[in-house]
């Protein structure tokens, strides 16, 4: 019997389930290694060489080099782990969040101040926007 995954039809959302976790194991563990200052230094000195120490897929490495968080997530990344790349870069979490939405950090911060992204039109893929 296959597993029920009712969360697959939520727009702009990838649920980090066992399948994603399996895909992203080495990507996320690479991110975890950035908790140590000496690893951050080594990564910053030569990103490609540091990434090559990990049995990650080429797609995962390219996504990290491009700092494309949506691509990282599609390749099994989890945001709490990926946030450690942003911390290494000295980026705020809000900068990272904005980068995934296609908004500038300023536009994103403004949206949050105005009450955040509305749930209306954001429950189901293909749902018509209200108003």
């Amino acid at each position, binding site marked *: 019997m296959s597993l029920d995954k009712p*969360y697959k039809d939520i727009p702009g959302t990838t649920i980090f389930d*066992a399948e994603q976790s399996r895909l992203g194991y080495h990507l*996320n563990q690479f991110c*975890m290694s950035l908790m140590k200052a000496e690893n951050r230094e080594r990564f910053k000195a030569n990103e490609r060489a540091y990434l090559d120490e990990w049995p990650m897929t080429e797609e995962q490495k390219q996504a990290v080099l491009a700092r494309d968080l949506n691509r990282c997530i599609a390749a099994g990344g989890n945001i709490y782990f990926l946030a450690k790349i942003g911390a290494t870069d000295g980026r705020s979490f*809000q900068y990272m969040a904005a980068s995934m939405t296609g908004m500038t950090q300023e536009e994103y911060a403004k949206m949050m101040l105005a009450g955040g992204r509305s749930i209306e039109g954001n429950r189901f893929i293909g749902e018509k926007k209200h108003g």
Partner: protein
Amino acid sequence: MARITASVYTSHVPAIGAALDLGKSGEPYWQPLFKGYEPSKAWLKANTPDVIFLVYNDHATAFSLEMIPTFAIGCAAEFKPADEGWGPRPVPTVIGHPELAAHIAQSVIQDDFDLTIVNKMDVDHGLTVPLSLLCGQPQAWPCPVIPFAVNVVQFPPPSGRRCFELGKAIRRAIESYDEPLNVQVWGTGGMSHQLQGQRAGLINREFDNAFLDQLIADPDSLSRKPHIDYVREAGSEGVELVMWLIARGAMSDVAGGQPPRLVHRFYHVPASNTAVGHAILENV
């Protein structure tokens, strides 16, 4: 015998800790949020427990993908604030209560909840931000704390129902402890927020307030809410709210006692990417 006197519910946004640590709590952006916790700080000062049992989640800090315990109880004598990538928060070391924690672990496991026992662990903002919100910036936390970590990073987290039932088992465990300790149970995380993908920034004020209403008045029905409702309506990270049901399940009305007294309730948007919710319930 020990008894549970109250439960506290609050979000645990990391930016709140950073705002306090960097002396920004008086800025216009943060002022309304900290003002909402002023009554809670006064309440905790007047009602300091002997122990806080604090339910929270680790954010890829103590637990990487090497081990993902669904429920983990901290039985150590102390827990250091973790370095989450920008140095540890300048907050006091968390002093544990190994005797009560071991007692709860044994009782709850015999009550069919298979906990992971953790004897060495650093604690991240999930645990220290709630303490900061209610205690301010003291030299030492006002009492020992038992950290109780719940997996909400890899889906699925435990169900709301499972959390609620676990809360009942925790109450039975605490009430069977010989020493006459006054214990508070805190449930943290939430409220609506999504930190990933194109839908990042989602806030659902209506969902959050309905959740608070139901948490107070009808937690049994609330505990039957499926994961998909949290994820769809409150965001992929909003599912942290199941942790509040552990604290709610530990209150005495659930076991046939009187309805609890609502001491304080507060809601605010935004704290960085997140809606902040807070409530205090006292057993009467």
